[in-house]
Structures are given as structure tokens and as C-alpha cells.
């Protein structure tokens, strides 16, 4: 199957290893992947701050960049949700772009959603002998409606010890600019999350949204908690055989 990778700005700029793992996992599972030039950001930061006009400029560019893609895979629940839920709002009063946005929406998938729902694969052949817990990010579950797919994939990793996170659906407190604008409230919220994570006794925290992971990981590290933080793709890339490239 052919698909295009929309790596997202956060993975591109701060977590290139996650991008690498996404490529590895997808290729190993038979996906012919390309990386369309010109991709930058889905526009979520500006959209969440109310700057719809500025968002639309970048969103139009992304729609153009992926115009010829058959499927688009996005290793981020909230970026995928931005396209699915935000783009139609952005182009509400612009029928021409609304139609193009809808076409983009129809072929865009979050990483785990693509593997489970489109490839029909629930075991990617990874091995990872660690105790892990999983943070369900808000926009991925509530807006995009992707809840079980990442957990199905995780539970089928050989050797993994999967522990459910208490209050997994509670927000981690990131909220984009909220984490800086109202940093003290945000910090109180992430502390609840961190306490729940620690209570699981897991060695590794796994998630599908790098911004949530940056927030939770940043707090874990500041509190001196020795816990590994990984994107789902990085776990699925473990012990999966030879490099796929």
C-alpha cells in the first residue's frame, strides 16, 4: 500500500527518532512510504489561539502538499484531529477549500489507526520486554475517536507487560499555549498525571502525541523520576528485525 508521511512539526524538529521509527514500522509492514516536500505543520497552535486566518494560510498549503497522496499517515492524534475537526471549521464559508479539506480529511489517518484499521494489522512483530503504561491523549480519543487501536498494538508486542493507567483519559495539562500562558495551573494538572503514572509501577510511558509526551516527560524529568518516555512508534520499532531501509 502507498502512503505519505505527514511527520508533524514537533516530530520533525524535536523528535526525529520518532519519525524514523514510524518509517521503519510502516515499511516493515508493507507500506510504500513517501515524504511530500513542503509539509510543515497542521496549524494547531495558531488555530487553538484563535488565529483562524493565519491557520488557513498554512492549512491550504498542507492540503496542496498532500493533494496527490493516496493516504496520509500522521504520528500524532491531535494533529490528525486538527485536520479532521479543525479544517472543516476553518473553511466553513469557503466551499472550494472546504471540499479540498474534506478530501484531505477522508484520506488522513493517525498512525495506529492506519495500521489497525487500514492495514488490518494488529501485531507488527515487535518485541519489547518492559513494563509499560499508556496515556490516552484527549484529541485522539475524544475528537478523532481513536481509542483502542494503540492499545491493541501495544498488547500484541512480544514480552511486553502492559498496565492500564488510572484516569488514562484525563488531560495531561498541556493544552498548547495554555502550558505557558497558565503554566502554574498546567503544572498542577500534569502533576496529577505524573502521580497516576508513577502509581502503575511502569518503566516506560507510551503515548501517541509528542506534545503530551513532551509535557509529561518534561515534568517527570524535572521531578527526577527515572522513567522512559516513548512514542508508540518507537515501541513498535523494537526488536522488529532488520532495518527496513
Amino acid at each position, binding site marked *: 500500500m502507498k502512503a505519505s508521511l505527514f*511527520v508533524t512539526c514537533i*516530530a*520533525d*524538529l*524535536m*523528535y*526525529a527518532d520518532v*519519525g*524514523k521509527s514510524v*518509517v521503519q514500522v510502516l*515499511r516493515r509492514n508493507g507500506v510504500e512510504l*513517501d515524504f511530500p516536500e*513542503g*509539509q*510543515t*505543520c497542521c*496549524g494547531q497552535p495558531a*488555530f*487553538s*489561539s*484563535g*488565529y*483562524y486566518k*493565519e*491557520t488557513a494560510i*498554512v492549512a*491550504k*498549503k498542507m492540503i496542496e502538499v498532500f493533494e496527490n497522496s493516496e493516504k496520509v499517515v500522521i504520528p500524532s492524534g491531535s494533529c490528525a484531529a486538527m485536520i479532521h475537526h479543525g479544517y472543516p*471549521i476553518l473553511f466553513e464559508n469557503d466551499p472550494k477549500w472546504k471540499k479540498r479539506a474534506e478530501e484531505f480529511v477522508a484520506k488522513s489517518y493517525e498512525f495506529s489507526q492506519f495500521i489497525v484499521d487500514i492495514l488490518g494489522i494488529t501485531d507488527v512483530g515487535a518485541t519489547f520486554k518492559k513494563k509499560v503504561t499508556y496515556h490516552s491523549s*484527549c*484529541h485522539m480519543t*475524544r475528537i478523532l475517536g481513536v481509542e483502542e487501536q494503540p492499545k491493541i498494538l501495544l498488547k500484541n508486542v512480544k514480552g511486553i507487560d502492559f498496565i492500564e493507567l488510572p484516569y488514562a*483519559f*484525563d*488531560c495531561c*495539562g498541556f*493544552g*498548547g*499555549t*495554555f*502550558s*505557558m*500562558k*497558565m*503554566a*502554574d*495551573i*498546567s*503544572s*498542577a*494538572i*500534569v502533576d*496529577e498525571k505524573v502521580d497516576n503514572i508513577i502509581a502503575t509501577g511502569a518503566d516506560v510511558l507510551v503515548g501517541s502525541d509528542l506534545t503530551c509526551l*513532551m*509535557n509529561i*516527560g*518534561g515534568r517527570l*524529568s*524535572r521531578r527526577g523520576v527515572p522513567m522512559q518516555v516513548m512514542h508508540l512508534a518507537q515501541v513498535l520499532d523494537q526488536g522488529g528485525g532488520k532495518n527496513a*531501509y
Partner: protein
Amino acid sequence: MHIEPSFRKRYHKALSDTAMLKAVKNGTGRLRGQRATAIEAVGTERWMAFRDRAEAIRLHVIQHLDQYLDQLINNVLKNGGHVCLAKTGEEAVKYISDLAKKKNAKTILKSKSMVSEEIHLNPALEKQGCNVIESDLGEWIIQLAGETPSHIIAPAMHKNRFQVADLFNAVSEEKIPTEIADLCGFARKYLREKFLGIDIGITGCNFALADSGAITLCTNEGNARIISALSPTLVTIMGMERILPGLEELTVMLSLLARSATGQKLTVYNTLSTGVRNEEELDGPQEFHLVIVDNGRSKQLGTKYEKILNCIRCGSCLNACPVYRNIGGHAYGWVYPGPIGAVLSPLYQGMDKYGELAYATTLCGACTFACPVKIPLHDMLYALRNDKVELEKTGGVVEDITYKGWSATFATMSRYRFSVRMARRFQFPLVKAEKIAYGPPPISDWLRHRDMPALPDKFFHEIWPEMDNDRKE
């Protein structure tokens, strides 16, 4: 109660009040746990169908609000009641104050009414010499404390039993133990006596039924029922949107309200009152006044925020909200806290005063999913932020510059790649052990609580060509 005008100062005060935060976390935790159990018992699918039905009922009422108001008013008048349609809070307060004067009322007993809090009724009545007593346990507690409600259905959620005991001891002749049963026992005894000397009773309104003019009151303490039975003059205050067509719709809403609010199948006391007593009846008021308050509601009709009028004030979105759970209700500043307050306050009271509340949210969407009548609360929070940028022409100086620059950079690949490479090259003075150690605001705000990784040696778009070439070879 003095309310600090700066939201920032209000929430900082809240963040340092550990007793309050503990009480709020306990309270919200209990309520949302009970709600989850109740929904589990119903089954998620049926619950979703329930919500769809409730949403449809509320949307229908709001879209035909003029007709239903007309029907309601006619039926209340037919039943022998009086009606005041108040455009503003001041008008409503004046009507009730004048009535109290006319009746020479000394003792006024109230059951819980958020609208009465919204229009600041108690201070106005007290100013003219009335003794106003709140008969809802939570409302009475905060009345003794001289505070406002911090939660829509549990107004004293922010207080623990020790604080409540202190408040009760201030009005009690004998010392009351801090056990909850003793505290409730004292409140019952104290308030029971007050019910016997009511001049005017004031209640809120959960739902007014248009087809009969009946007022529905839901309480777990039975206080509203006693007031509606024992008051010679009864006043009911309602927001103008709190109407249902009739009993059939009420059954849906009652089971949804109780489950969403507290996880109960039904609130303990559900009273329907048509106002003035009939000749053959022994109790019930001799005079009934329905005060219907607009106060910013009608201006939402026909706007993208119209669905906010669906709200049945169950408080479920508060319990679901991570921000509410971590700052409590008072920090929001106006009478309605949490996500519903963050939307209502700027809409009813103005963006200039409460616009900041639209940013007091992580946009996690938990509120929207907790809402029994499916108000898209978090979409409205986005819309309010967009309104600020579009209508006020600014979302803040820093934001304006940031996002204009962002769109100019991120819409063009070469500019994007150039600027991120420049950022990586010049980040070195800020980096220590692969982490960002210092930064200007707003990065410094992030760094106060959390670490942040430095930009890596290679961006993904620099690695991709290698991965792609290896593949092709």
C-alpha cells in the same frame, strides 16, 4: 465577598489554598465517579441515545423559545400567578425587592437558585432589612461564610467539614462535633424552625413546563418542596431558557439531570408546583410570582453560541474539567465556574471582563463529552478565542506577532527550513546537557515546571533523504 479583578491573581490564590483544593478534588472525584457508575449501569450506547434525545428536546425548545415562553406565561397567569419578564438582573431584583416591601416581609427563605446568585438578589433584599436565609445546606454554609457558590450543584464543595463546623459553631449555642452526621443534624434543626415563619419564599427552577405552567424543583433535601408549600407568597426565579414543553420531556431530563449531576437515578425530591393553592387545598402559596430572567440570554439566540442555552446546570462539565479540579470555582470570578462558566461569563457579561476565561482551559474536550445535552463547549472555547482575535483585532501583542510570523514562515518550505536551522544554530547559549536551560517568556514559564529538550543535531527532514536513498538502492 470581594472579587479580585485579575484572573491571574485569582487562580494563583486558589493554587495556594491547599485545604480548598483537597476538598474540590474530593468532591469532583466523588461526583464524577458516581456519574461514571450510573452511566455504566445504563450502558454507554443507551446513554448516548439518551443524550441525543435530550439535545433534541433542548434544541427544539430554544428554537421555539418565544412560543414556549408565551405558552408558559399564559398558563402561569391562568393558574392565578403573576409574571415578571426581566430583561436585566436589576429589573428582576427590583421586582422582588418591591414585592418584599409591599408585603412588609421580614423573613425570606430561599431554596437554591443560581440565577438569584447571578443577579445578586440577597444583598439587595438584606439592604432593605429583610432576613434572607438560604435553606439548601451548601448555600447556607456559604451564606454563613459570606461567600459565593464555587460549584453549580454543590455550592460549598470547596469547604471541608472542619471549616463547616467553625461556621456552624458561630451561630450555635452549643459546640457541634465535626462529624458530618452531627453537622447535618444541626443544620436540619436550625433551618426547620425557620421554615415556620416565612413571609416570602424564593425558589429557583429546574424546569418550567410550558403546557401546564408547572415549576419543577429538584432537591435532595426537600427544602424547595417545604418552601413552595409553606410560603404565603412564593417567588420562583428562572433563566428564560429553562423551559420544557411538558411532562414527557421532563421525564427524559430528570433522569439525565440526576445521573449527570450526582450519579443518582433520580433526585430525591422532585416537586411540581402550579403556584397558587386552590380553594380546597390546605397548603401552597396564596400568591405566586414567576420571575423570568433574560440577563444576556436572548442575545445568544441565532448566534453560533445558541446551544449554550441547552444547559440544564448539572455541573457535570465542572467535575470533568482538569482546570476546575485544580483551581476550584471562585477563581473563575463570576457565578458560573468551570467550562460552562468559561463560555457563559464572556457571553453574558462581556469579553472585556471575562474573555480571559476562554484561555483557562486545556481544550481537552472532557466537558463536551460530559455534557448531557451535548453542548460543544470546547468548540465554543475555540470560537471565543477566534472572536477575540477577529472582533477585537488582537489576541495579544505577542500572539499577534507570533502567529503572523508563524504563518508567513510555515506556509513556505524554504522559510520554514531556514528559520528552524537558524534556531538550532543559535540555541547554544540556552542549552545545557541537551536540554533548554534558559529562555525568554513564554519558554521561561514552561521551564519553571518542566524540562524541554534542545533542538537535535538533525531534523527529520534532513534524515529522510538518507532513508529514502537507502531504500532505493
